């Protein structure tokens, strides 16, 4: 062609290329013979192709392009550089070359290929060609690579072919239209009529088939546009013998039915006809799919479809049909869970299937089945299944169980005791990697469900004591929760010493430092508990037998251990019989602790080190020899007693969950005076958080807590608040927003039923009602323990269950941390006590701690004492961060933190 312009050298090289060019077969053969040299061979071939493709000889060029196309399709070689060469081949008259050009173009062209603009005219010419194969090449290219511009330019040409008398061309043109319509939706006006005509074509079913395929795809985009064509589709559904077409038409109807329910009545009959008559499983399955998802209101056809699904299950030789049977059941709306239940055995057996896909489907179906009545049965099946399964599926099972059972505040659960043991069992699954979620739920349940706390500590003990669990890093989070529970609810423990041993076992060095810190903190709490129990015992025996000598193994009295308002007699009785708290046991325990914790006091990790030192400090103080007999009034003894009592108070406040909006509900007593400069905060904080609750009453928490505060608040000048105000003014940006809530200590979980008995002011009642979830399950099921839900949490949970519930844990950990170092802004008591303990001062004893009645009367008094300014002072505490966060209109914000602290959240809970 262009020889006149070519140089001699290029002629000779082109000639050489032509003469010695390797064909595609040669290339494939060479690649096949040396698979190890593939990259080398490919790059060599590529260099060759780059040279050959510039050849002026069309055969050489086309062979080069053919090889390049092959390499690109199979070996992912970039062929974008050859775009123009592909276009060069398109106008050629040799069909073979043309085909190579079109194939290369189909493979490599996309909307970013610039030379694609050059092909428009060539394609138009080919579309008009009298030769079928040529037209077919052009149409195939368009169906794969048409751009918006090409579609716009060529839609008319393709449209003309839609009425072609050459059926092969007409069929391909129909299929090509889909691509043009997707690229350029406006062209639907041009082609729509011809498309509809093609659907009614009686002479060639292939054209109907292609058209239905196009409509099936288009109806997926906007079904409403194709609703008017329903009669035509119906006709095909009744008349067509072609299963492919029927399947497509069924898909179209499945999309149209939601828009036009009246269609259902019409198509029910043909569908059941097809289901009865056809042998093709694919068509049966499509009918089943359509019926189960769209035609569930039609009894006969619905039952027929279910029968077909059962047939799928029965033919258990074919895993495909089993899979599809499960898939079909999963399409059912939740209303038809009885259908799934009917097939429960099949589904449970499918959990054992060798195919993970079938297992997965079966698990999904089972999780959809779980309800209050069968949750225990199914969960046990699943947990056992998880033990047998491979790690991946085992964790899938565990994850599904955990999320189902915790859904909407554990609404499925009645028997929490069982659930807690189930969590334990899950942790023991050797494949378990869901530690984080189990940790969260353990802590969450501990906070929300008071009744289950004794069982929790049992589960926690079992987990802590098992040295094998320490090896699995995924379980460390669970162990952290177990350690926290063992410290927090130690009073329910049958044997605290056993817990201490478990917490300090040598293998705990496998734990990450953050978990070790929790372990050590738990030890701290247990020491305090044991000592206070021991002291209670001594006091009691002194009381009961004034002049008798107090033996060191005196029986531990029941009522002596009602610390933190826990009146659980059964536990105390247990301890009574066991008689654990003897001097010997305690000193043994201290020695053990000292030995185990001492190395940690030089630990690199500050969290561990600090806590270890705390524990050692405590041990040091307590290790003063405890008097054997009759010397219990000695100075040492008093000292120890004071320290133990004080420290115990730091932990005796039981945590309750607090809703995110608790702060807004805090009542503002009007009688609190603030220092003047606090008025400034108003301008600092802005107006957004100025919404003040209208009621002015709150529930106090444990009385001894207040007692402590009385003394403290008197010493603590109000200056601190002004310091903080200044500080806040300067560093306001670093403070968290007002939504942030704090965990308030409370010594008792409020129960929904208690509210009505308690003498609460009307406003509180009102609030309680508002916060009560009327549909709460806890009201309907009698035996179910109360699950504390927070007001406002409901809505959060609906949109994101995790988000809402996380809060409980976060706050809890915060508290744990605080309590640990005793110097942060946790409860005021913790703060005081640490200070007092540090100075070795003695603080007045909290008499009558065990006297419940007394406490109750205190509550009542307190409630009606809002107008007593002194009362306000009582509540004044150094915990002033919150003071500034929320303040009332008249600036008397002191009460806010009071309420915040002393609310004890009962009225905010539920």
């Amino acid at each position: 062609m262009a020889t006149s312009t070519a140089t001699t050298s290029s002629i000779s090289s082109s000639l050489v290329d032509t003469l010695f060019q390797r064909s595609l077969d040669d290339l494939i053969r060479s690649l096949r013979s040396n698979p190890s040299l593939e990259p080398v061979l490919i790059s060599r071939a590529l260099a060759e192709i780059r040279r050959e493709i510039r050849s002026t000889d069309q055969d050489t060029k086309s062979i080069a392009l053919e090889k390049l196309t092959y390499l690109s399709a199979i070996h992912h070689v970039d062929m974008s550089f050859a775009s123009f060469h592909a276009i060069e081949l398109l106008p050629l008259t040799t069909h073979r070359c043309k085909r190579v050009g079109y194939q290369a173009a189909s493979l490599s062209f996309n909307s970013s290929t610039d030379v694609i603009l050059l092909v428009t005219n060539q394609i138009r010419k080919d579309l008009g060609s009298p030769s079928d194969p040529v037209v077919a090449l052009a149409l195939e290219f368009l169906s794969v690579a048409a751009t918006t511009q090409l579609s716009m330019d060529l839609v008319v040409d393709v449209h003309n072919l839609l009425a072609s008398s050459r059926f092969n061309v007409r069929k391909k043109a129909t299929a090509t239209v889909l691509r043009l319509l997707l690229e350029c939706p406006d062209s639907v006006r041009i082609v729509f009529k011809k498309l509809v005509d093609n659907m009614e074509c009686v002479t060639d079913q292939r054209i109907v088939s292609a058209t239905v395929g196009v409509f099936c795809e288009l109806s997926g985009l906007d079904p409403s546009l194709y609703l008017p064509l329903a009669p035509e589709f119906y006709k095909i559904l009744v008349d067509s013998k072609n299963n492919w077409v029927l399947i497509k038409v069924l898909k179209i109807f499945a999309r149209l039915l939601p828009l036009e329910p009246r269609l259902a009545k019409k198509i029910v009959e043909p569908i059941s006809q097809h289901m009865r008559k056809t042998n093709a499983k694919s068509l049966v399955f499509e009918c089943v799919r359509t019926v189960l998802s769209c035609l569930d209101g039609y009894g006969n056809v619905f039952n027929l479809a279910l029968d077909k699904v059962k047939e799928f299950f029965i033919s258990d030789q074919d895993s495909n049909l089993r899979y599809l049977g499960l898939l079909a059941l999963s399409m059912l709306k939740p209303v038809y869970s009885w259908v799934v239940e009917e097939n429960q055995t099949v589904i449970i057996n499918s959990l054992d299937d060798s195919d993970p896909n079938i297992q997965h489907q079966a698990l999904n179906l089972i999780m959809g089945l779980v309800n209050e009545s069968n949750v225990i049965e199914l969960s046990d099946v699943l947990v056992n299944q998880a033990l047998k399964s491979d790690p991946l599926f085992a964790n899938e099972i565990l994850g599904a169980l955990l999320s189902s059972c915790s859904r909407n505040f554990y609404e499925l659960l009645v028997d929490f005791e069982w659930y807690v043991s189930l969590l334990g069992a899950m942790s023991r699954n050797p494949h378990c990697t869901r530690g984080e979620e189990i940790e969260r739920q353990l802590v969450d349940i501990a906070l929300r469900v008071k009744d289950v706390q004794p069982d929790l500590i049992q589960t926690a003990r079992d987990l802590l004591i098992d040295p094998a669990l320490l090896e699995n890093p995924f379980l460390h989070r669970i162990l952290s929760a177990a350690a926290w529970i063992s410290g927090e609810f130690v009073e329910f423990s049958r044997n605290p010493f056993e817990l201490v041993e478990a917490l300090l076992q040598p293998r705990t060095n496998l734990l990450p430092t953050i978990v070790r810190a929790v372990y050590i903190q738990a030890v701290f709490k247990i020491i305090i508990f044991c000592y206070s129990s021991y002291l209670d015992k001594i006091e009691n025996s002194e009381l009961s037998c004034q002049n008798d000598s107090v033996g060191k193994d005196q029986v531990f009295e029941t009522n002596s251990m009602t610390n933190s308002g826990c009146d659980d007699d059964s536990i105390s009785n247990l301890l009574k019989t066991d008689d654990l708290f003897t001097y010997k046991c305690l000193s043994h325990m201290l020695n053990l602790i000292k030995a185990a914790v001492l190395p940690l006091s030089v630990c690199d990790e500050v969290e561990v080190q600090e806590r270890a030192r705390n524990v050692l400090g405590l041990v040091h103080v307590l290790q003063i020899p405890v008097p054997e007999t009759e010397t219990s009034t000695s100075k040492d003894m008093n000292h120890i007693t004071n320290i133990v009592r004080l420290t115990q108070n730091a932990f005796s406040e039981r945590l309750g969950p607090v809703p995110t909006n608790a702060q807004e509900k805090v009542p503002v007593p009007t009688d609190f005076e603030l220092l003047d400069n606090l008025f400034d905060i108003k301008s600092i904080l802005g107006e957004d958080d100025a919404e003040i609750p209208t009621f002015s009453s709150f529930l106090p928490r444990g009385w001894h807590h207040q007692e402590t505060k009385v003394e403290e608040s008197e010493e603590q000048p109000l200056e601190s608040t002004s310091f903080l105000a200044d500080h806040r003014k300067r560093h306001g940006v670093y403070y968290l927003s007002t939504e942030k809530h704090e965990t308030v200590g409370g010594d008792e979980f409020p129960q929904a039923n208690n509210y009505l008995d308690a003498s609460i002011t009307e406003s509180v009642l009102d609030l309680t009602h508002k916060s009560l979830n009327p549909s709460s399950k806890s009201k309907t099921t009698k035996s179910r323990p109360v699950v504390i839900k927070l007001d406002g949490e409901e809505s959060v949970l609906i949109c994101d269950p995790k988000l809402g519930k996380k809060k409980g844990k976060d706050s809890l950990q915060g508290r744990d941390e605080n309590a640990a170092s005793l110097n942060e802004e946790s409860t005021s008591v913790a703060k005081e006590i640490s200070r007092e303990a540090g100075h070795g001062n003695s603080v007045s004893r909290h008499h009558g701690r065990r006297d419940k009645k007394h406490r109750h009367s205190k509550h009542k008094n307190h409630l009606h004492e809002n107008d007593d300014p002194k009362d306000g002072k009582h509540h004044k505490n150094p915990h002033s961060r919150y003071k500034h966060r929320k303040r009332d209109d008249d600036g008397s914000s002191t009460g806010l933190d009071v309420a915040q602290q002393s609310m004890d959240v009962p009225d905010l809970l539920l």
Partner: protein
Amino acid sequence: MGIRFILLVNKQGQTRLAQYYEYMTLEECRALEGEIVRKCLTRTDQQCSFVEHRNYKVVYRRYASLFFMVGVDNDENELAILEFIHLLVETMDRHFGNVCELDIMFHLEKAHFMLEEMVMNGCIVETSKANILHPIQLMDKAS
């Protein structure tokens, strides 16, 4: 688009034919083929022929040393696709006579040709073996 891609892969995981009905870059193709091959080739004969992958399904079937894999939309009829795969194999069988991996390797353009006749734009347009093979036979005669 019903069918998104058709892949023929041998037991060693080497691609023998790849036809995509939506544009993908070379890297995407390579990644996708790698993932699917890894997923499907590890499965046993007793396991079902459907694998969910990303936001679509892969329906595959093994014939001798070759895996035929078809990527389809989630609502596509799996059994129909299996029938399609079988039809494709039968068509190749009729043309090559006892088709094997080598036939497809050395006659890739013919395999593509058959696919072009059967599928356009992801829609199955031709299911008659005679009709599919007719143009190829014409071409063979001409050359």
